[in-house]
């Protein structure tokens, strides 16, 4: 048969579909987005006896009556309703043998699609461990389609599956017995559809889809016809009059059919027959979701996750950054000083470095996430935390993305992919950058170290803690607002399946790390690189007037030859002064002046404005930018010269420019503001457009302005300046 339009892998969530996809396609995979939605499209190439074919790994779905964008995409691909994906030539229905009944429900719908189909009976090992033997041959006879037992992670049965696909047939839909009254209504409705132009063989199936409450796109043009809408209304009224609920009746009928199939094909071993024995998973759950031990273990696991991405990733990030910087120096070493050299070292290589620096955190977080998800613990973590987070409109699964955001919002926003519910996922991504990330710490350290150096540890610690707490409180309020105002029409039920515990597969963990890191680098990375180069150009141009540069050099010239050490200091001072003048005269410097009226109410002048603009590259760049602005050079780890320069700065009237109130205002600004172009780039990638990142940028920075304004005036009133 001709499989050139591709095969689709369909199945419930947690049925081992992705492992099977990996086994079928190897590393020849591509991850993209379905146009217009934030659903990942995973495709790969499988070698079949007939030749190579495209395989698409559809999002996990419980039913073809979709309740989320993921499920809608799966349904539309299977029904051939998407212009971006050709209708599949054949379907591999992945069925979890250890959870046969519920998996067969989706299969009962897949059998009606009229496409060639093969069942891959997965996780037979887990079913066997429970003493449930599923007889594949008997099952095949009952379902009327080939049933191939596979163990995805051990790659057994893959060849048999390939062979079965090559000769797959269109199945005959099974016949579940419906009450006579319902059948009569279906037939009447089918007749109306027939006259409305639906081909005869599809009429009855389509009639039952209407009565089952299906709202797929292919039904809409029919409902638009008055006679169909009217017949549907009449059928529903008739059924209601005799107390028949079509949705429940049809679902129950499928499950009765499923019960008869499982009764015939599943040999329950002694453990199941006794019934009193709890499964392995339930025994583990007794500890892992226990009110005391469960929360304790949860805290331990989350603490190690945080330590890993906060501290373990740190030296790796240093190594990556150092390597890129060294490479940049090596590449540009032969070039003359000038625009090209600066573009390469401060634009391109700095941009590449800004992308690469996130790789350790992303790789580690997604490695850990894969372990937690594959093992089945992620669902338990969500189960434990859901109460806390659902109060503000988030999901139990929001916990890890938000926790990760205390290290960095980039992996945090990406980790929100594990949340199926679209509103809860979006809300999580929108509030993640309010968590104080590690890039804010150098800013907090500079401000608190400069202005509160002589205060007790209690005050300093309290200020840091206050910054973290402010972020969390504002995040909670924002999430709650999202709950009230976002997509109120859409209802996605909270269905959290607690899957069977399994040992995570090293190959799958490594694959997750690889796929997520490379997608980040190729998708978000290009945007980050482009934005870094733009930011570079704005600070590099226009060039300092040569006459002015000569004047600065003359100021710093020494009349007498200096000793090597003194000459180095002199040269450093001259470079710092030149850098200061260059930045002040650049577009960034001018823009600092332009926004001064806007930030003056917060207690800032143009120099701080320049720092804020520079901080869009990354928040900690505020510190180094202020170093350049104050002519003390890039301060590195030692803030002291910058602190001195800041404290010495005076306004025109002679009063101190930087006061503790200004510092508090800046702290509030940095807690609340979206100051990170990399986060904007990742938001664009994860939400599939500019709409949400721009909205987030405007929202957070407006909020930051209001917060900093209030903090400045409050601090002035309290501190009495």
């Amino acid at each position: 048969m001709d499989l050139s339009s591709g095969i689709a892998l369909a199945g419930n969530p947690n049925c081992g579909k992705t492992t099977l996809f990996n086994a079928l396609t190897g590393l020849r995979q591509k991850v993209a987005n379905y146009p217009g939605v934030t659903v990942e499209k995973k495709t790969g190439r499988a070698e079949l006896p007939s030749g190579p074919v495209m395989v698409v790994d559809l999002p996990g779905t419980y039913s073809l009556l979709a309740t989320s964008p993921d499920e809608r995409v799966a349904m539309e691909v299977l029904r051939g309703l998407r212009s971006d994906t050709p209708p599949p030539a054949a379907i591999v229905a992945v069925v979890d043998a250890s959870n046969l009944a519920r998996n067969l429900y989706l299969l009962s719908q897949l059998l009606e699609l009229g496409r060639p189909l093969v069942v891959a009976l997965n996780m037979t090992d887990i079913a066997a461990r429970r003493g449930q033997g599923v007889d594949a041959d008997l099952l095949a006879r009952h379902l009327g389609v080939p049933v191939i037992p596979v163990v995805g992670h051990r790659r057994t049965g893959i060849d048999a599956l390939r062979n079965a696909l090559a000769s797959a047939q269109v199945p005959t839909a099974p016949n579940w017995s419906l009450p006579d009254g319902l059948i009569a209504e279906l037939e009447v409705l089918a007749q109306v559809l027939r006259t409305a132009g639906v081909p005869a063989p599809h009429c009855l199936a389509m009639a039952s889809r209407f009565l089952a409450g299906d709202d797929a796109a292919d039904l809409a043009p029919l409902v638009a016809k008055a006679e169909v809408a009217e017949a549907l209304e009449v059928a529903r009224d008739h059924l209601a009059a005799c107390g028949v609920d079509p949705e429940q009746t049809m679902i129950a009928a499928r499950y009765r059919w499923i019960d008869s199939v499982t009764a015939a094909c599943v040999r329950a071993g002694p453990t199941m027959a006794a019934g009193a024995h709890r499964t392995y998973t339930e025994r583990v759950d007794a500890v892992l979701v226990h009110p005391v031990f469960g929360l304790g273990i949860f805290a331990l696991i989350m603490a190690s996750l945080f330590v890993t991405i906060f501290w373990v990733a740190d030296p790796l990030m240093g190594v990556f950054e150092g390597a890129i910087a060294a490479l940049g120096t090596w590449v540009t070493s032969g070039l003359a000083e000038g625009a090209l050299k600066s573009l390469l070292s401060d634009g391109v290589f700095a941009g590449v470095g800004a992308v690469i620096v996130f790789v350790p955190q992303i790789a580690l977080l997604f490695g850990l996430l894969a372990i937690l998800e594959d093992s089945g613990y992620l669902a338990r973590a969500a189960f434990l935390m859901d109460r806390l987070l659902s109060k503000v409109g988030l999901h139990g699964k929001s916990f890890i993305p938000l926790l990760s955001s205390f290290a960095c919002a980039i992996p945090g926003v990406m980790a929100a992919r594990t949340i199926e519910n679209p509103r809860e996922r979006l809300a999580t991504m929108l509030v993640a950058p309010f968590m104080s990330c590690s890039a804010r710490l150098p800013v907090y350290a500079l401000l608190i170290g400069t202005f509160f150096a002589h205060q007790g540890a209690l005050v300093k610690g309290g200020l840091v803690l206050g910054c973290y707490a402010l972020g969390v409180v504002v995040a909670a309020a924002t999430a709650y607002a999202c709950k009230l105002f976002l997509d109120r029409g859409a209802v996605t039920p909270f269905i959290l399946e607690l899957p069977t515990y399994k040992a995570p597969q090293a190959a799958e963990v490594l694959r997750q790390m690889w796929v997520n890191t490379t997608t980040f680098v190729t998708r978000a990375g290009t945007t980050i690189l482009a934005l870094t180069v733009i930011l570079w150009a704005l600070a590099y141009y226009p060039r300092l007037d040569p006459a002015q540069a000569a004047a600065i050099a003359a100021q710093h010239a020494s009349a007498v030859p200096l000793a090597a050490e003194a000459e180095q200091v002199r040269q450093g001072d001259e470079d710092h002064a030149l850098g200061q003048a260059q930045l002040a005269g650049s577009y960034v410097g001018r823009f600092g002046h332009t926004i001064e009226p806007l930030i003056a109410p917060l207690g800032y002048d143009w120099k701080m404005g320049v720092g804020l603009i520079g901080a869009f590259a990354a928040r900690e760049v505020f510190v180094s930018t202020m170093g350049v602005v104050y002519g003390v050079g890039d301060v590195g780890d030692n803030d002291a010269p910058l602190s001195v320069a800041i404290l010495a700065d005076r306004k025109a009237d002679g009063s101190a420019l930087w006061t503790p109130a200004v510092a508090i205002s800046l702290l509030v600004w940095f807690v609340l503001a979206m100051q990170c172009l990399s986060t904007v780039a990742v938001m664009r990638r994860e939400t599939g457009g500019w709409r949400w990142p721009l909205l987030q940028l405007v929202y957070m920075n407006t909020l930051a302005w209001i917060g900093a304004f209030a903090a400045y005036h409050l601090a002035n009133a309290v501190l009495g300046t």
Partner: protein
Amino acid sequence: MTSVLGSGAIRRRLLEMGLTPGIGVELLRRAPLGDPIELRVRGYLLSLRADQAALVQLTLTAA
């Protein structure tokens, strides 16, 4: 279990998850913070928030 109340997508999905009339449902536990709850339905473990679990009508039988 006797029936699922409510209407629309949520009710349909609960039915589709196997909560059909006549089926046995076992309440295993509440989450430590009180919500959601964990059920055993048709041999698998399902967790529902209280507001959705409230739609599921049950008759109690001794375990």
